[in-house]
């Protein structure tokens, strides 16, 4: 056997600088935690934040570059381009945001703080690696790197049976989905003889017709595997339970970073490797998207607990992103249409991550002191804490896709792309779902502003959380006013 592509090659250290910095930071946090006194454990958080900021600096230093490294048979398996950098930046921002949510929660709750921050950085590292991964092996490694620390994070409250349960459910679904995904990957490898996406793309279009069912089967397995990660219906059962049982900041992390990580992997796979056989798998995505939106929204209607509401709303939001996959076309002339679908998906993911993280931050702030996770307790919040109520309303309004928040653009762009691709029935389903969703988001807003509060006690929100939520809300408004802030980035970010 010839060792093709495995010759000694030089590594482009600058290209992998963000990952390296983040990995080193994670270890610094872990080691520092060993030597920190018990009352000083919280210092792990600023350390982690500094690590993420350094990572962000490394990402920025690469801005505009287009390079690759770790070549197999002449194709880079790790690329740095606008797409990768955009998502690396997004992961860093989400990471900082989740740190802000976590700080007070973990400091007050007798957790293993140092380990938590280490795990979070590691999981984030998976996200960063995912954005650059361009072959099946790296995608697999990246997704596991995201998931495994996240499993431990959700079981973080060791003594709490709910947290244990959250962790176990997440673990079983995660491992099962990995197995399914791997089986699909192994079939792809068998069909094309390569694990590098560009090679797969070039050879999968020309396979014999008799092998086509195998392609469908392989993509189906891949899709099912990712469907678990992004909590698409009918593979979503773990998500609400895990979000509810896990510490809430972890739920925020799962709902944003982890989910976006899954989507990035799916985007890379579907837009890079399989567009030439899009006709065979497009219906799968259409069905998945419709089921995910509709079930997510309908079940969200009857939730009484804010984290579960956000979990189901997050499921529904995944559905809108999945719509973009159902628009991928094959054949010549599809490039422009696919670019539009990709841009819509990128914009949606970026805006979704910020608004969802914001909503989780508001929920955590409210539950901290003087409040709870029950939606009924949000009644009259405006009279108790006008700022918190306004911020929460802003995030929910954004999630509902209503002006004056960026969420409106996210939905609109996907909708326009759907109509442009002439998939009218999907556009109609989206529209109906947007109305259903507006109902439950606005019900919370209505309760906060119109109903009478049970208590008059003000809800105290720490400055860190205030600053984080304020920035997120300001960003959402800014993007609403001037969407090119994000669309320009997404436009010039092809895979």
């Amino acid at each position: 056997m010839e060792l093709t592509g495995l010759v000694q090659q030089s590594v482009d250290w600058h290209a992998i600088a963000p990952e390296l910095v983040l990995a080193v930071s994670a270890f610094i946090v872990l080691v520092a935690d060993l030597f920190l006194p018990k009352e000083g454990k919280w210092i792990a958080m600023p350390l982690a934040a500094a690590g993420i900021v350094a990572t962000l600096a490394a990402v920025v230093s690469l801005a505009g570059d287009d390079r690759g490294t770790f070549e197999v048979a002449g194709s880079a398996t790790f690329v740095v381009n606008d797409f990768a950098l955009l998502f690396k930046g997004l992961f860093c921002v989400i990471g900082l945001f989740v740190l802000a949510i976590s700080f007070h929660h973990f400091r007050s709750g007798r957790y293993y703080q140092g380990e938590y921050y280490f795990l979070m950085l590691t999981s984030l590292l998976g996200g960063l690696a995912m954005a650059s991964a361009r072959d099946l092996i790296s995608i697999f490694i990246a997704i596991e790197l995201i998931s495994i620390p996240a499993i431990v994070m959700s079981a973080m409250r060791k003594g709490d049976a709910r947290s244990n349960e959250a962790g176990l459910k997440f673990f079983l679904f995660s491992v099962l989905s990995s197995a399914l995904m791997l089986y699909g990957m192994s079939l792809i490898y068998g069909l094309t003889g390569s694990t590098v996406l560009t090679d797969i793309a070039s050879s999968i279009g020309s396979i014999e017709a008799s092998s086509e069912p195998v392609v469908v089967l392989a993509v189906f397995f891949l899709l099912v595997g990712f469907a678990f990660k992004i909590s698409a219906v009918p593979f979503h059962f773990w998500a609400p339970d895990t979000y509810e049982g896990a510490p809430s900041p972890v739920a925020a992390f799962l709902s944003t970073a982890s989910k976006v990580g899954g989507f990035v992997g799916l985007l890379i796979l579907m837009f890079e490797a399989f567009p030439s056989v899009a006709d065979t798998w497009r219906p799968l995505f259409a069905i998945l998207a419709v089921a995910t939106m509709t079930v997510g929204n309908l079940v969200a209607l009857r939730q009484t607990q804010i984290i579960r509401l956000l979990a189901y709303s997050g499921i529904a939001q995944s559905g809108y992103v999945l719509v973009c996959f159902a628009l991928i076309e094959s054949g010549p002339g599809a490039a422009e249409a696919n670019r539009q679908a990709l841009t819509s998906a990128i914009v949606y993911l970026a805006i979704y991550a910020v608004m969802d993280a914001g909503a989780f931050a508001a929920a955590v702030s409210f539950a901290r002191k003087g409040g709870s996770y029950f939606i009924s307790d949000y009644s009259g919040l405006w009279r108790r804490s006008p700022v918190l109520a306004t911020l929460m309303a802003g995030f929910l309004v954004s999630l509902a896709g209503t002006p004056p928040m960026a969420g409106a653009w996210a939905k609109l762009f996907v909708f326009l792309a759907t109509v442009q691709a002439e998939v009218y029935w999907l556009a109609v389903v989206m529209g109906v779902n947007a109305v259903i969703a507006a109902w439950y988001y606005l019900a919370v807003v209505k309760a906060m502003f119109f109903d009478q509060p049970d208590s008059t006690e003000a809800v105290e929100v720490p400055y860190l959380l205030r600053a984080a939520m304020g920035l997120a809300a300001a960003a959402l408004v800014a993007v609403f006013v001037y969407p090119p802030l994000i669309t320009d980035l997404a436009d010039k970010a092809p895979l």
Partner: protein
Amino acid sequence: MPIAYFLVLSSLLFCIGVYGVLARQNAVLILLSIELMLNAVNINLLAFSAHLAEAGVPGQIFALFVIAVAAAEVGVGLAIVILIFRNRQNVDVDEMSLMKW
């Protein structure tokens, strides 16, 4: 040996694994079933790597990664199972219903 033999073996293993995941109640047995599925994947990868001229070694490397990651997963999984056993004295997933599904 024709490659079909390996593929049939691996798909059988995979199906047994899926059945085990769906039918077992004990968390450890579910974990074992998932391991079966992962091994089916490894057999696939190695068979393709050995039989297809153009496939080369990536399949074998992939299998190594799968083994390594599976080990990490099992480590985490067993830790959680032990945690749950400590808290509730059993690891039956049907009784994991503190939160509604």
